[in-house]
């Protein structure tokens, strides 16, 4: 997957407790696997094999099924994201307004590819399909923050801003 996958799993006891609580909450419902995996993605930020195993044994389903779902849906990530996860919208409205160029610029500036993470773990980059802010196209998000009406020059400023942060 990405160049971050070598990072060893560092789950904490608190995270595990939260996951167990989520399993407990959903386990008797039909279709429990997806909500539990979504909770796990929120808790850990990604779904390493260790977490998938916990889910499989907690819900008593085969690990293959958990893996099958985690690789089917784009929301589930098998590798961790950077501290600042950058997501560039390549939906139609943004693409027509030049988000492809913004994405290329980010790849050059950060030196990573789609789905990649910088070696220091600070930035990760991915493309996404429409966050629904088409009125502000082209847009990108850094974690939850939305940046709209972008030009290529804005890219450098945004990166500088986050580089300056811890």
């Amino acid at each position: 997957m990405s160049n971050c996958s070598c990072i060893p799993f560092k789950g904490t006891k608190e995270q595990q407790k939260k996951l167990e609580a989520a399993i407990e909450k959903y386990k008797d419902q039909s279709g429990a696997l997806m909500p539990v995996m979504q909770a796990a993605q929120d808790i850990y930020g990604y779904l390493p094999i260790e977490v998938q195993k916990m889910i499989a044994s907690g819900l008593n389903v085969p690990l293959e099924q958990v893996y099958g779902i985690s690789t089917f849906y784009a929301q589930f990530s098998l590798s961790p994201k950077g501290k600042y996860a950058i997501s560039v919208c390549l939906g139609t409205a943004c693409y027509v307004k030049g988000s492809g160029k913004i994405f290329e610029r980010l790849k050059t500036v950060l030196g990573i590819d789609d789905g990649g993470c910088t070696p220091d773990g600070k930035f990760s980059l991915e493309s996404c399909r429409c966050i629904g802010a088409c009125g502000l196209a082209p847009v990108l998000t850094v974690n939850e923050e939305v940046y709209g009406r972008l030009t290529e020059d804005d890219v450098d400023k945004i990166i500088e801003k986050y580089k300056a942060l811890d």
Partner: protein
Amino acid sequence: MKNVAELIKIKEETLKNMKSYKYNIRVCGGTGCTSSGSMKIIDELEAQLEKAGIRDEVNIVQTGCFGLCALGPIMIVYPDGYFYSRLEPEHIEEIVKEHLVGGKPVLKYLYAETVNDGEISAYTDTVFYRHQHRSALRNCGVISPASIEQYIAMDGYMALAKVLDEMTPNEVISTLEKSGLRGRGGGGFPTARKWVFTKNAKGDKKYVCCNADEGDPGAFMDRSVLEGDPHSVIEAMLIAGYTVGADEGYIYVRAEYPIAVEHLTTAIKQAREYGLLGKNILNSGFDFDLDLRLGAGAFVCGEETALMRSIEGKRGEPIPRPPFPAIKGLMGKPTLENNVETFANIPQIILNGADWFSSMGTEDSKGTKVFALGGKINHTGLIEVPMGTTLRQVIEEIGGGIPNGKKFKAAQTGGPSGGCIPASLIDTKIDYKSLTDIGSMMGSGGLIVMDEDTCMVDMAKFFLEFTIAESCGKCTPCRIGTKRLYEILEKITSGRGEIEDLDRLEELASHIKEISLCGLGQTAPNPVLSTLRYFRDEYEAHILEKRCPAGVCKALLSYEIDADKCRGCTLCARKCPVGAISGEVKKPHTIDKSKCIKCGACMEGCKFGAISKK
């Protein structure tokens, strides 16, 4: 909540409470305006009102989408309906002082089109709003989605009460049939027929599903309804449950829509507290409850059978139909599945009658349709127009035309399943049949406008890239066929195309359409076919002249510096990310084509127009 009288009481109390304020201010809290900072506007407004000592005279309502996302953040001040646009927190102090305390609206911050020679006109008279007719969006931008009382004040849950009190399931279905409502998710299947099939299906347990997996890039109609008016969907699902005999429902919504998820969660909780979800609703003996399921980023889950697999917690792969979900759907039980916008129309149809709805629209397409306007258009945003409105009205009037004096080239509807409509067909009426006849489709409502700088071959390639990524991989024509189509397009845009490739594209596209398992594969070739039909000359230019007329396809471009115009300012050399430009100060520069990555940064930066691309 036991009966209609209690609903009416809440309605009256809420309206009375709203009237008790000197000003009611509506601030858009939809995704578009939130992204451009509307929450900061609300915070600042509260602080400034507090400071001016008039906090209790003013009611701030955080609403759903007003539609004009391009001008966000937007705030409308009632009772006069003054429309402030593109607000910054720094503007608020002045607005509070001059307008809310002093009674004089601050003209310079009002939407320019509503101000003429110092006179303010109603925003509903602007070109963006005056052609619209809001049915599915009736409460978006009007009420607070977090308040069930405000929904009730707009006659919310009255349709449910009417159905439970006065109507048999057959009467509900016949009303829907007479209204002519068709599915708004893209397919256009008559809604009443779906309801009849599910009602007549035999089963001890039935479900109602709402498809809110709006995966079509550039479309945000359903998101806006859920963000701005979640109760209308819940009410319609209750009516559906009563009609088809279901007691349980699911709303399957994209996880990428956090505000919609939050508002739906609140709305479901409120409806339960009021006894509008649960057992013995409005004392009628009817039981119904519903739950949310979040999508996880798979476009194919918008296909109804895939969506149901996903709700069951499996990989969202479609299965062959028949059996249709109306017979064997979720958990193998009869299931009614409708799209958000379809549901949002239903309470209005019940309250105002089938004739009211069918009086809007055309022969085969009744009512209104919501569109998300995006791309190269001035008024990007959300609109709702009667069916039969022409594309020209939507683009040139409501949409405010194309920015920067560029020429309109094509409009794309139906997303990755749809097609491009060329400028020559701009007078086409927007209805199901007219759009299908010209090789596009209504789709769910994404409408992307393209100007002369858009390459249509590149666009077709863009959509196929999407389809390849989103194909679930279950059936061969979709999984492999779309990849092959993409490779041919890649060959053409990189300058290696042969004229025979056009026949190959057409032949392969027709096979994929015929033999794919689900709607995703069956419609995936449409962007290729429709661009080939209307923009064949662009394909030919790529192949025969090795030229991209729109100047998009990199492999076919080259950048050059005009030595006569170049002043040797060195800006381009500094802008170039790969050091391909060299030259002495104050002397004409040159581009080393072997190093150039054709990013265009030099051309954008040049102040003398000395750099051109061919």
